[in-house]
């Protein structure tokens, strides 16, 4: 009877377990303005602000009873937040941490502190450095002039301090070219002395700046309730994550800017289901597990 009363069933995803807590630590502020940035970050985008150290610490304490497995730091560019290093040092007492950075603003004194913090912790500190291909010709038109070289210098610096950065690229080429491009990137990194290169390819999300660069999602790019039947929902980030922003807790790191994505002020309030009706949800559905490190899955 109820199914008759509800013909327009929504594709609902419950929060299964809060495995990853994200911190939108630099808001939408970035020193770069990549043409494919799915939340249109730039030096002037203040729609989300920085998180304070106190806010991060409060959420870390809140995360304990939720059994959060690991913590992610993103922006914008996280290292623009002057308290990031202190936040990471604190976080490593609670669990593993991953920073998503563009690699262009790293300072040796920060990495020295972070290396010491990681060595004193049970947990790994991972860096994901965004570089969109193994050459300036592929990367710079998207991320800006000289950004390939600057980001690669960031990788060099991380390697110098004993980190093993994960080079993360957005697929701005055909999927069929993955193999060749990854191979070339491994060679380039090896030549620079990084023989243990770890690489990750992400699909493009047709949101924010990227929606203007190419085209946004069409109304047919939608997940339906029917498509979720028998589907492993743990493939979707929103099934096991939430994001702390300065405007409240968001459903996932991809949609923070979309209507309805802010679910409440506390983790408790954000423990509710979400209808995955956005165009980007179709990308998650298709590719799965797009936000995690290779060691997870």
């Amino acid at each position, binding site marked *: 009877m109820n199914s008759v009363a509800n013909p327009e069933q929504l594709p609902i995803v419950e929060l299964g*377990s809060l495995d990853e807590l994200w911190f939108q630590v630099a808001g939408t502020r970035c020193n770069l303005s990549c043409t494919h940035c799915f939340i249109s970050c730039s030096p002037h985008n203040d729609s989300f602000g920085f998180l304070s150290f106190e806010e991060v610490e409060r959420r870390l304490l809140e*995360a304990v009873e939720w059994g959060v497995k690991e913590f992610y730091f993103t922006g914008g560019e996280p290292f623009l937040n002057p308290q990031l290093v202190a936040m990471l040092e604190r976080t490593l007492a609670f669990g593993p941490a991953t920073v998503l950075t563009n690699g262009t603003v790293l300072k040796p004194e920060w990495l020295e502190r972070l290396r010491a913090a990681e060595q004193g912790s*049970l*947990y*790994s500190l991972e860096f994901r450095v965004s570089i969109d291909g193994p050459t300036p010709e592929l990367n710079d038109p998207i991320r800006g002039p000289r950004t390939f070289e600057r980001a690669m210098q960031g990788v060099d610096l991380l390697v110098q301090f004993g980190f093993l950065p994960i080079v993360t690229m957005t697929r701005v080429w055909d999927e069929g070219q993955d193999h060749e491009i990854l191979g070339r990137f491994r060679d380039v990194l090896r030549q620079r002395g990084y023989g243990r290169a770890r690489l990750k390819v992400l699909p493009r999300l047709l949101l924010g700046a990227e929606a203007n660069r190419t085209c946004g999602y069409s109304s047919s790019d939608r997940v339906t309730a029917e498509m979720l039947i028998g589907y492993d929902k743990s493939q979707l980030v929103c099934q096991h994550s939430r994001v702390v922003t300065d405007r409240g807790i968001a459903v996932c790191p991809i949609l923070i800017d979309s209507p309805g994505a802010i679910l409440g002020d506390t983790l408790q309030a954000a423990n509710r289901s979400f209808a995955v009706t956005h165009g980007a949800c179709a990308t998650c559905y298709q590719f799965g597990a797009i936000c995690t490190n290779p*060691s997870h899955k």
Partner: protein
Amino acid sequence: MRLAFFGGIYSNHLALAAAIADARSRGVDAMWCLGDLGGFGPHPDRTCELIRNNNVSVVQGNYDHSIGHGLNDCQCGYTDPRDNHFAQLSYDYTLTHNCDDHRTWMRTLPAQQRVEFDGVRLLLCHGSPRRTNEFLWDSTTSTQFLAKMCDNNACDVILGTHTGLHWQRTWDERGAVSTKSRGFINVGVLGRPENDGTINVWYTLLRTGGDVGAGEAPLPWEVEFVPLIYDHERLACEMRDERLPDEFIQTILTGWWTTCLEVLPSKERRRGQW
């Protein structure tokens, strides 16, 4: 009670035979294997026979699930084509060298087992209680996550394998890292060495009740990780005879992993050579 736990065997029947003998010589009351019988090594049938003839209870690993059901791959989900190439070679070898009887048996293995000894409630699984192929590494698994997993499953100790590296964490009822009360144990694997330049493999002994060593305050349970020497040179010969990849043989002979390194978090990865 004295209990022995073997992790992934990966067809290393020589290490398995040595481990069974070693555990018996220590007077264990029962033995378990936490899954992944095949892959990597030679003659998968020999591992199955040893397990089935020696009263070793088994939890199903992702490999056993795949082989049992004749799936296309091992469900490890690597993304590096080189890793996938080698994973596929050993998977295809294992699939074609297992007899139907063993494969039927693999299909019937439980995804987890619960047992209780001397009031300690154990949950035995392969990756994690919620997912057979979940990687729980020491450096990427927070204590509050483990504590919650124990609470959700109403148990005191969870034992798993799957990653290939042994480790343990213990905490108290409030989730603080402390002396034993609750715990998670990765029992290691018998299949290959631990990427540390030594050729031994590892298994795990768990003691409960009166078998726990005398301490100031008697603990409800205690763990001992056992380094196990076996005839690794003979294993390498058998692998060569079966034309298994030289990369795998090097791991057996040197103690360094040469493939599938991508899944290691940075702390674990740094300890290796590659």
